[in-house]
Structure formats: C-alpha cells, structure tokens
C-alpha cells in the first residue's frame, strides 16, 4: 500500500466516523437542538444507512417514550414549603455553606452528614502511606530543570488560570534514588517520592491515586483538610512535616495514576475528585472552577 492509499483510507474512515457521529446526534437530539451543520451532515448520509439506523432507533424510541411516561406518572414525595422552612429552623447553617448559586458546591461538614466516611478513608490511607522519615537526600529530588523530558509528568492547566503545577517523582530503592519515568514499572522494593512545583499563584493541594477503573483514592492530605501550597517547590511531607515516600497497599499491582490538584480555595477534595477524575484530566475545561491546575503521572506497580 502506498502513502496515498493510506491517506485515502484514513480519509474514508474519518468520513465514516463523522457520518456515524452525525447519525448519532440526529437520532438523539430534537430538531430544535440540531445545529445547521449537523442537519447538513445528516442530509448527506447514505439514505439506506440512515433508514436502517432510524428503524433500529424507532424501536428504542418507543420504549423510551413509554418509560418516560411511566416516570412522569410516578408519585411525587409529599413535601411542602412548610417542611423546608421547618428544616431551615432545625438545621443550622453550616459554617462552610456556600450560596446555592455560586461555583462552590456546598458540602455539609462531616460531623453532619458523614461522620465516618473520611475518617475511615484517612485511617486506610495512613496505613497505606509509609511515613518513612528519610534523609534530606530523599527529598532532594531532581529540580524541574534537570528532569529528562521523557520523565515529565503531564501538566494540565485550566483555561482561566495561569497557575501551573508540576508533580515530580523519583524512585526510592534502598539507599538509591533515581529520577522517575512516566509509565515506569516499579518493583516490590521500590517506593515513590514526590515533589510539587507551584508557579504563578499558590493554591490548595489534594493528591489522588486513581486505579484502572477510574476510582480515585485520596492520598493527601491525610487529615482530610486541604493543604495550602505557596509558589515554590515542595516535597510531599507527612503530618509532622517529615518527608515521606509512598507505595500502595501490599498486593495492589497494576497501572496507577497519581493526580495532584491545586484549587483556588480550600474545598472538600472528595467533592472535586469524582467529577475531575471521571471527566479525565485532559478535559480541563470541564473541571469545577475552583480547580486551578493539575499534574499527573502514571506508574506500573508489580
């Protein structure tokens, strides 16, 4: 096959994907929600292909319509304004309450809604986090200028922020510390030492470990309260300020992602994590607005 053939094939596949995407939108959206280009693309689809897709969708559409009707007929809860006003009198306004129309998602204090959740999590994380006091040579990780280009963590910045965060890491093995490489495989006798480099403006740090299924696990801060980081380079430290190295619980293997978030204000990290991490850090434009910057890297634990 020549390059030209390859290009033509790529172009054909691209056209097919575009047509399929247009068809998906045509079937999913009401006419008033279709833009002009979407309608045009749909008009240009192969009539047979379009008819077949519409026939398949018609059956689903009938089911969906019946289900929606049944949903709308479901009884509503017996709730009145009096109940709400009564709640208003009984439940004190949390001190961290944010207006419902602000960017901040109001979260009840743990003492109200979930007295055990973060505490349990913290206990698990404390167990997982090896608080190994090590010499200053451990925390003397490579400076940004000395990091091999291939080892740099992915630095993600939201469109509205000039703040930058760089999550750097090294591999600690016995008495040896070596620069980390993104995607590196780590053995059972190796641990991670991390450092955060903040530029632009400071912010509030939270650090997560994300498994292959996208499940985030809060690593830092272990107290559940966000930690303020000013501009500069900071090693990851324990609650007593001592440098720490990390490896996951015994038996945990596979690819794990480490994501550091810097937020404009101290927030409950568990509020931000699911949205940010499930949307993917590539979609910084979809993040909640308090997120200023993030940085991540991946390693493979054996």
């Amino acid at each position, binding site marked *: 096959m020549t390059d030209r053939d390859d290009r033509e094939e790529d172009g054909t596949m691209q056209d097919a994907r575009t047509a399929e995407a247009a068809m998906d939108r045509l079937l*999913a959206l009401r006419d008033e929600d279709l833009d002009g280009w979407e309608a045009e693309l749909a008009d240009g689809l192969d009539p047979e292909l379009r008819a077949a897709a519409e026939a398949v969708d018609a059956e*689903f559409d009938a*089911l*969906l319509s019946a289900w929606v009707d049944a949903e709308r007929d*479901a009884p509503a809860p017996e709730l009145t304004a009096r109940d709400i006003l009564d709640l208003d009198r009984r439940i004190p306004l949390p001190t961290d309450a944010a207006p419902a129309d602000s960017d901040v998602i109001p979260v009840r204090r743990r003492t109200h809604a979930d007295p055990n*959740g973060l505490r*349990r999590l913290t206990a698990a994380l404390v167990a997982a986090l090896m608080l190994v006091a090590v010499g200053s040579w451990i925390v003397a990780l490579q400076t940004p200028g000395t990091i091999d280009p291939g080892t740099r963590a992915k630095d993600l910045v939201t469109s509205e922020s000039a703040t930058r965060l760089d999550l750097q890491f090294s591999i600690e093995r016995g008495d040896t510390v070596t620069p980390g490489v993104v995607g590196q495989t780590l053995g059972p006798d190796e641990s991670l030492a991390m450092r955060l480099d903040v530029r632009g403006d400071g912010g509030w740090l939270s650090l997560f470990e994300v498994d292959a299924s996208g499940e985030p696990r809060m690593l830092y801060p272990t107290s559940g309260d966000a930690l303020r980081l000013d501009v500069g380079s900071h090693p990851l430290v324990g609650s007593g300020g001592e440098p720490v190295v990390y490896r996951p619980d015994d038996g945990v293997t596979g690819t794990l992602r480490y994501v550091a978030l810097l937020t404009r204000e101290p927030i409950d990290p568990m509020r931000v*994590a*699911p949205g940010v991490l*499930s949307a993917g850090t590539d979609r910084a434009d979809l993040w909640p607005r308090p997120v200023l910057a993030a940085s991540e890297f991946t390693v493979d634990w054996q």
Partner: protein
Amino acid sequence: MAGDSRPRRHLRVVEDLSSLEDEELMCLHRDGDASAFDLLVHRHRGGLHRYLLRLVRDTQRAEELVADTFLKIHRAAPRYQPTAKFSTYAYTVAYRAALNHNARMRHRRDFGAGGSAELEQQQRAEPPAAGPAGPERAVRLKRDFARLEAELDQLPEAHRAAFLLYYVQDMSCAEIAETLDISPEEAKGRLAYARKLLRSRMTADRRERT
C-alpha cells in the same frame, strides 16, 4: 415615583399564583411570600425526585436530597436574581447534591451493595396500561423498563444526568449545558453517546431473548 428604584413586583398584588412563572414565584418568595415557595415546591418536587432517584439510586436518599435542594434554594433566596430559568437553577443544585452524595457513597465502598440493589427491588405500583395487546405486553414492557433502568444505572453519572434532563425533564441542550456547567457541544455529545449505548444494549438484549 421617580425616586423609587425598587422593582415593581414588590408592590404587585397577586391573586392567582398558579399563573406565574417559576422565576416570578421565586422573586415573590425572596420577598417573603411563603405561598409562592410552596407552589414552587409543589411544581418541582416530583421532577427533582425522579431525577435524583435515578442519579443516587436510593429512594430515601433521593427524598432527602430533594428536601436538601429546596433548603439550599430557600437559603439562597435573598440573593436570587432571575437571570436564568428557575428549573436549570434547581436542577443544578440537585445535580451537585447528587454528586456529593455519590462521592461519599463511593468512598464508603458499600455503594454497589446498597443503592443499586434497592432501586432494582423497587417496584412500580402497577405496570403500565396493558393496552389492546393485553397483559403479555404489559409484562414485557415492565421487563424492558427494568432492563432500561439497569442500563441507565450503568451510565457514567454525567451522561445519566444529561440523558434524564433531556428526555424526562424536556430540557434543551442549552439548558442542560447550563445546569451541568458544560458546553452545549459537550451536552450533545453526552446525549448522543448515552442514547447510542442504551439503544445498542437494549437491542442486544432483545435479540438474546428472541
């Protein structure tokens, strides 16, 4: 009165609240009219409950979150400005409440054992009207509904929320974008993806059964 810059609605005597739009009711509530808030609760409690139930998959929690949503709206009322539709505002508050709840549940690690099973066990009071084809159709439809709901539960919550707002709440893509704080293009993408996925799974399910 030239020197009076207050909005006229402060002086308005309203006899029939039911003729007012949600935003007007919210302004009246902001200004101290409790009956306006009662009508708002009455109008939206059902829709919010359905929405939250599908997002958190727990009837009791959904009811609590409906109350929580209205409580937040009530507490934010003094700052309310009718710059957007009330429904998008209310569903924004509800969505955030559901996300918070789900995040907490995920980290309790008992989510799968609790919420989803609870919803699966939830029975509709009656199957949908049998229609001319008789009870067999009703049974089949009920089974299809259960399957559809199970598949809906499998969608990522961001896609599920968009799907519910569009098809059950009849919001536009622009309203969904505002409610979920995403772009209209992203809203469309989520809807197309969700519908395609549900359609393919339901079609495969039917083929297996036949």
